Each structure stands twice: as C-alpha cells, then as structure tokens.
C-alpha cells in the first residue's frame, strides 16, 4: 500500500489528512491489513455468514403515521434555516 492510496482513501472518506500524517497513517493501515489477511486465511467454507450478532429476525410495524410535525423544534438546533429548509453551503454537482 502506497501513500497515494492513503490520500485517496482520505479523500473518499472526506477526512482532511495533512502530509506529515500520511506515513504514520499508512503504517497503521498496514497493521490493519495484516489483521485482515490473518482473518482471510481462515477457512470459512462451512460457516454460515453472520449478518448480525443476534439470532433474531427484523420486527416490523404496521403502515400507520405516528409522527407529528416537530419542525420548529428540530430547526431550533440548525445553524441556518429559511422558508422551512435547512440551509447548507451551496452544493451543485
């Protein structure tokens, strides 16, 4: 794994990564990858994949509207709102 990969991963994860931290992060990631390699070396062919640690199935609720409008309370926490919308710095792709 090269430092370019670390930069790319940092970009994808939207994490600011100063150049001086690249080497250290790379080393830590190498250790994590070593652990992954160790895990992958195990033979799991006869083991059922576990999607969740609890041996339970998802519960469900009937299709009923139970929530009331609490916009004012939620928006009291927001840095900026206008016309009922939350405002964020301009995003256009």
């Amino acid at each position, binding site marked *: 794994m090269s430092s370019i990969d670390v930069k790319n991963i940092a970009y994808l994860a939207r994490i600011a990564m100063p150049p001086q931290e690249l080497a250290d992060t790379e080393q830590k990631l190498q250790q994590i990858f070593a652990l992954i390699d160790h895990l992958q070396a195990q033979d799991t062919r006869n083991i059922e994949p576990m999607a*969740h640690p609890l041996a339970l199935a998802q519960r*469900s609720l009937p*299709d009923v509207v139970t*929530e009331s409008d609490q916009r004012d309370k939620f928006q009291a926490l927001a840095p900026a709102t206008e016309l009922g919308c939350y405002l964020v710095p301009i*995003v256009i792709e």
Partner: protein
Amino acid sequence: MSTNNDWEAVIGLEVHVQLATKAKIFSGASTQYGAEPNRQACAVDLGFPGVLPVLNREVVTMAIRLGLGINAQIAPRSIFARKNYFYPDLPKGYQITQFELPIVQQGHLPIVMDDGRELSIGITRAHLEEDAGKSLHEAFHQMTGIDLNRAGVPLLEIVSEPELRSSAEAVAYLKTLHALVCYLEICDGNLQEGSFRCDANVSVRKKGDPKLGTRTETKNVNSFRFVERAIDYEIARQIQVLESGGKIIQETRLYDAEKNETRSMRSKENANDYRYFPDPDLLPLEVSPEWIAEVAKDLPELPWQKRQRFEKEYALSAYDANVLSSQKTLGHYFEETVKASQASAKLCANWVMGDLLAALNKNNLALDNSPISAKSLGELLTQIANETISGKIAKTVFELMWTSKTSAKEIIDREGLVQNNDTGALEKIIDSILSDNPKQLAEYREGKDRLFGYFVGEVMKQTRGKANPNQVNTILKEKLSAE
C-alpha cells in the same frame, strides 16, 4: 465506413418505484406529497443520535407483490445494508438499502412491441431502500436549501438485465412495468411527482460481438418520451465517438430535455467507494412462505393477463387490447361500457380509445374525472347499435353529453336527432337531389366516381345528418346505376 446498422445497443434499466405507503420505510412520518418543507421529517429521518429504524411491514408486502407479479424468487432472508456517501440531503451519511441479498431476485416482465413482437425481459433484482431528501438550489442566495420530507420514503429499485436492444423496447418495458406497479397498487405511478424514475444504462457494440461495450448511466429521466430521446441520443453519441476513434468513458450523464442531449455529470473513474456493510441497526428480514401465500391470495389480474383476456373475450386486436389494458382504470372503463351497451365490444373499444381519450386529453382530465361515465357512453353506443342515430350524429351527442352531463337519450330527444329510417321519404329526397343536379349526375355516370360523396353530402345536408348512412348508400347506388 460502417453504418449505424453495424452497431447494436445494449440497454439495461434501473427504475425507482416509490411505494404507496402512508408512512415511511423506517419511521412513522407521513409520505404524503406536497407538504411544506420538513413538516414530515421526524428524528429518525433526520438521523438524530439515539434513534433506531423500525421496518414498515407494508413495504415488504408490496415488494412481495411485485416479486409475485414478475414471477421472481422472493428471498426467505434478506439483509439491509448501509451505502455510505456524503451529501447534505442524506443526513445520516448513509442510505439504508439492500446490497448483497435483495428481497426480489430473478423475475421476468413480458412486453409487447407495437409490431406485435412479444419479448420476455429478465429482471435481475428488486431491492428495498429509503429515498434521500431534496436539495433546492434556486430559492436561496448562495446557499442550498434542504427539504427532508422525502428522506425515508420507501423505494423499490427494480433492475433489468441488459436485454433491451432499442429505445422502443426500453419504453415498452417501462410502460409495462408502470402498468404493473399501478395494477398491483404498490405505486401511484405519478411520473411528474417522481413516483416512477428511471436511470438508463446504455452501451453499444458491433453486431455479433459477444463482449459488452463500456456503458454510461443516464440519470433520472421522468417521462417515457424523454427516456426514448435520451437513449437515442446516447446511442448515436457513443457510435459517433467510437467511429471517430474515441473511447467511451464510464460515467453518469444527465439528460437535458430542453436541449435534447445528455451531458457528463460525474466520471466513475473516481467513483465513490460506498463502503457497503450490513446495517447493525436492522436485523435480517425474514419472509415466511405463509406471508408470501397470504399476499398471493389477493393478487389482481395482471396487465398482460388482461390483454390476453381482452383479445379472447372481446375479439379485440392485439393493439386495442394492449392500449385498453395499459391502465387498470381504462380497462375497467372499457368493460363497464361494454356491459352497459348493446353495441359490439369493438365499437366500444373504438369510442373509448378514440373519442373519449381524445376529449380527456384535450381537457387535461384523468379518466376518473371524466364527465361521461362508462354507463352513459354505453347508452350512447346502444343508440348507434340500434340505428337510432348515426355514428356521425353520435359525435355531436357525445360533445353535448360532455358539456351538459345529460344522458344520450335525453339529448337525442331534445335536439330531434333521431335517425330517419323511413326509406320512402329518403328516396323522395334523393330523387329531388338528383334532378336538381343534372350536371353532377351526368359527370358521375361518365365515370367521375368521387361525386358519390358529393351526393351523400347533399342528402346529409337536407336531412340535417339524420339520414341512416347505410340506407343513403344503398339507395344512392341503386338510383345512380339505374339509367
């Protein structure tokens, strides 16, 4: 130099169907369209700390209905995953979706082309997920407004195999799928409000080449006409790029309806790594055979079943049957008209598909709001069938019914429109017309056949359209051929 005929398009479609539930997929907030911004976004939809999603049972039932409708496998166990990406209209920083184990797998959708060709298009998968919110760029100065009413609205993403070979096939597929989700009552089918959205994956390759070309994805095209144009544009663009020695870049493109072109939105080369993983907040979804059997019990007649029945039961052409079964309400209206009328099913089909749909279109009305009920139309058509009025007069009566909401019979009586079936009277009128027009008569007899129409016109003028057209034709022919 190769031509377009040397190329083959390969098209796969991803359709986001908004499920017609009252509440959201993982919260109890309302999904009703058109509310003020953020009035229907609760703490779960906003991704507040400490909240947990709970699955809406109806969403699963609707996915099962779709699965049964396309004859697919319904997974006894499926998993919800987190798809991670950053965007302000996704407050949690991830979308809950299904990745490796979707609820519906490997189905088929039968489609019919206008030329009568029947195809069966494979459906790879359909999975449940939540919608994101909406970013509004226009109303705010140098800022973007976020409305999270749509966040958490349930979607079923239906992914076809890349088996479509033209924009016409893609549109036929979409129309059939649209009809299906409306028949199943799992979606309101409203394209303008975004309840049925389509992304088109398009690539081209030389005919006979087993390898797929590089594809592009055209996003969010929300009308059948635009899908057709966007795909046609994209096929032509890719052929042009390849023929001039270029390469297709795998990317997401956006269709601009005003300019009728697609343009690059973002390249997949630096694609997001969505870092999918099973959502620890949600347990595996288990669907029992009993649940599937219960849903199967009240599955309605499907569009293609109705089409086949219409062809058989009413002796309609494949085209008529296809149009009339394209919407559940239209099929129902047609059958109610037939029931209420002594006219043939074919005459009913012609009027429903012709005059009725044209009038609705012209007045921008949905069938449910038609001023003329199926029963009233049926009564009008009975008047044609029993020769009380001619087809031509019926059009006038139809217009009066449309505006006055009065019955056909009342209008015919009030306006004195009853067809004149008195042969003796008609003969007298025809005799006098022939003797008043000696020049035309002579010309006709010299071989100017098209003057026949002139005489019919004169008869209709004098009888104010009330003469029985069949009688007019028969008597005129007799008189004109007799020297």
